[in-house]
């Protein structure tokens, strides 16, 4: 009954015209809303919608920076799934994401929990963990190139302390991608740690104290209070990590150029090389569309795993 009572009220709102003063106010609010939205809409239109449409259109062409181009339908897409470079790049990127994301999130959370304690030198540790994030990737990669140098690098020097034989690291197809993953994990820690730290500091003290009063141990407090409380942040870190790992490029470009062979070739590198070295912009656009789809699938999977709040 209550529903039937409310409906006429809503209908009557539509039928009964607001007073003149109200109309002016509503119109003013609408105008103000559009005025405030305009910069964001323009930005989204010019820098997101137009490029996405352009990529979708280009992916159906054979455009290669020449004077002319033709429509090729879905040929670029079918060719991609026969292209060993693309398939290798896709596999390496997915593998990179699957390994780097959970490990870096776990390490970051562990470090953030450590940094959330009252320990000496907290400021130093926080700064130290954040430095790799603010350091240029080219500089980071150069340092790691030296670390991985098979002849005089720190990595082999460290292994030799334990009597292990030297490794060829980036020069060996079997260890090149894992070596890059280590750098990726290390470099991505800083941002995640800062986010986790902020989330941990926002966990309700009252809830933690209540749990303690109820006799909960450290693990139980973490599992039943802290973990649910940082859920939305976990989801945010997961999404940004998925996007970040799928877009890995500079590290690979500087350290291995995708080699040896195609052992470390990743999607963005393949897109870049097809577009700007092989001048196959149509083909690279199709690759970009597929990358967007794969990222969307990963994010959807992440949402399911995290059982995220989907109020957005």
């Amino acid at each position, binding site marked *: 009954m209550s529903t039937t009572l409310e409906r006429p009220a809503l209908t009557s709102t539509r039928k009964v015209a607001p007073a003149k003063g109200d109309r002016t106010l509503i119109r003013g609010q609408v105008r103000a809303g559009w005025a405030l939205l305009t910069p964001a809409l323009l930005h989204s239109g010019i820098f997101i919608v137009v490029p996405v449409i352009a990529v979708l259109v280009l992916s159906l062409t054979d455009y290669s920076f*020449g004077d002319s181009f033709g429509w090729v339908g879905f040929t670029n897409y079918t060719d991609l799934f026969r292209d060993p470079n693309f398939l290798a790049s896709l596999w390496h990127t997915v593998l990179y994401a699957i390994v780097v994301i959970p490990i870096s999130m776990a390490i970051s959370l562990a470090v953030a929990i450590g940094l959330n304690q009252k320990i000496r030198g907290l400021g130093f540790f926080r700064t130290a963990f954040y430095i790799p994030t603010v350091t240029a990737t080219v500089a980071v990669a150069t340092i790691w190139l030296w670390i991985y140098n098979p002849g005089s690098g720190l990595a082999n020097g460290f292994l030799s302390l334990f009597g292990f034989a030297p490794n060829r690291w980036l020069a060996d197809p079997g260890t090149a991608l894992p070596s890059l993953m280590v750098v990726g994990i290390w470099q991505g820690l800083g941002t995640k740690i800062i986010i986790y730290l902020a989330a941990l500091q926002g966990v309700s003290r009252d809830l933690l104290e209540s749990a303690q009063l109820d006799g909960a141990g450290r693990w139980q407090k973490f599992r039943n209070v802290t973990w649910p409380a940082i859920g939305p942040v976990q989801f945010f870190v997961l999404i940004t990590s998925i996007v970040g790992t799928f877009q890995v490029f500079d590290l690979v470009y500087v350290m291995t150029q995708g080699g040896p062979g195609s052992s470390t070739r990743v999607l963005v590198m393949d897109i870049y090389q*097809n577009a700007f070295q*092989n001048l196959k912009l149509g083909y690279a656009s199709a690759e970009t569309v597929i990358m967007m789809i794969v990222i969307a699938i990963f994010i959807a999977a992440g949402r399911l795993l995290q059982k995220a709040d989907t109020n957005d």
Partner: protein
Amino acid sequence: MRPVRRGVGLTVLAAALSVLVSSCGNGVIDKNTDGVPPAEATGTLRVLIPSFPPSTKGRDAFQKVVDDFQKTYPKMKVEPDFATYKNLNEKLSTSIAAGIPYDVVVTGVGWIQPFASKRIFEDLGKYGVTPDVIKEKSTAALIPAATYDGKLYAYPLIADARAVALRKSAFLEAGLDPDKPPTSLAEIKVAAEKLTKRDKSGNITRSGFDLASATGFRQSFVTFLASTGTPLYVKGEPNFDNKAGLDTLLWIKSMINNVQPYGQTNAAQQPLVLTGEAAMGIVNGGVDCSADGIGQKNCDDLKFFRFNSGKEIEYVGGDLASIGSRSRHKEAAWSFIQTLTKPATLDAIAKLNKKVPAYKDAGNSPAAKSNPLSQFVADGLVYAANENEVPANWLEMRGNFDIQLTQAVLGQKDPAKVLHNLAGQSR
């Protein structure tokens, strides 16, 4: 009233956007100067050129060319982009995408045909330079590389020739005769194995032969294959998916991690035989025998020779200057290329790059006479070999060769299948 007002609003917005877009466009693109007397032509000539190193010496040498050019085009500015071969395509493609194409573009062997087929370069026949005309002026080795569909699309600047060098002392130490250098692939392998030095753990401490393939095996494969008398492509058709191709690839595979570790290079990117890190190996077209370079003693320890597994060859690349087809200053660009190809300028470029000028009779050039290696490669330009007549998708194939040959050499893929794949991908 409301629809009218909305229409006015949209019109104003569209007008503002169009003004913005058009102002962006007109701000960087010069007016066309073709047909304008050189003394009156104004604008900026954009030059993409990997031939001058971006050092002070390189910039000074380039400025001399600009000064000379501006005697004819006094009001024209010149904006150089000292690219490298590694980022040449990126520069070129992004300039086209951005709508500010280069007027003069210097590329290398293998670039002309793909770009000419996309009509990115201008036919130099419009300026009276055809393959027949250039024969009288330039080294013959680079003319096929500058030609597409019977037309000339680039003017050769310098030749980047490669020879083989051996260390006499290393040969004598290994009981080999440096006066009888191994020239065939089979002989080189035997000698290289004797010349390779290892530590107690079996790690190579001095390579027996430097294949100069740290970043990829494409050029070395082309070179070794050509030495068997088999060019990589014939009239754009693959010529490597055969016994000669497979034998060559298997030979490379048998050399890597046997006489040279995979990926070996040095910080200075110098040929390893010049620094003593290899006993024998591929060298570029020049060596500095002065105290600032490797020194006279080291130079005297070197002997140069060419590959010959049935055909004596010398790999020859080079710098080739073209006019961008979207240039608004084509006549000025041609004038700049004419300035760039004056013998004195070519000598200067050759000296800066330790290469030889691409003019006829390069053997008598100052660059050739400046050191024994340049003299050797300049005299050997008649043995020139390179990728030959590449297919239209060569820019893509360059990368494919580097990746897939490496996979075959490192045992990740079957060599025969790799060659078959590469032949199938060439079109």
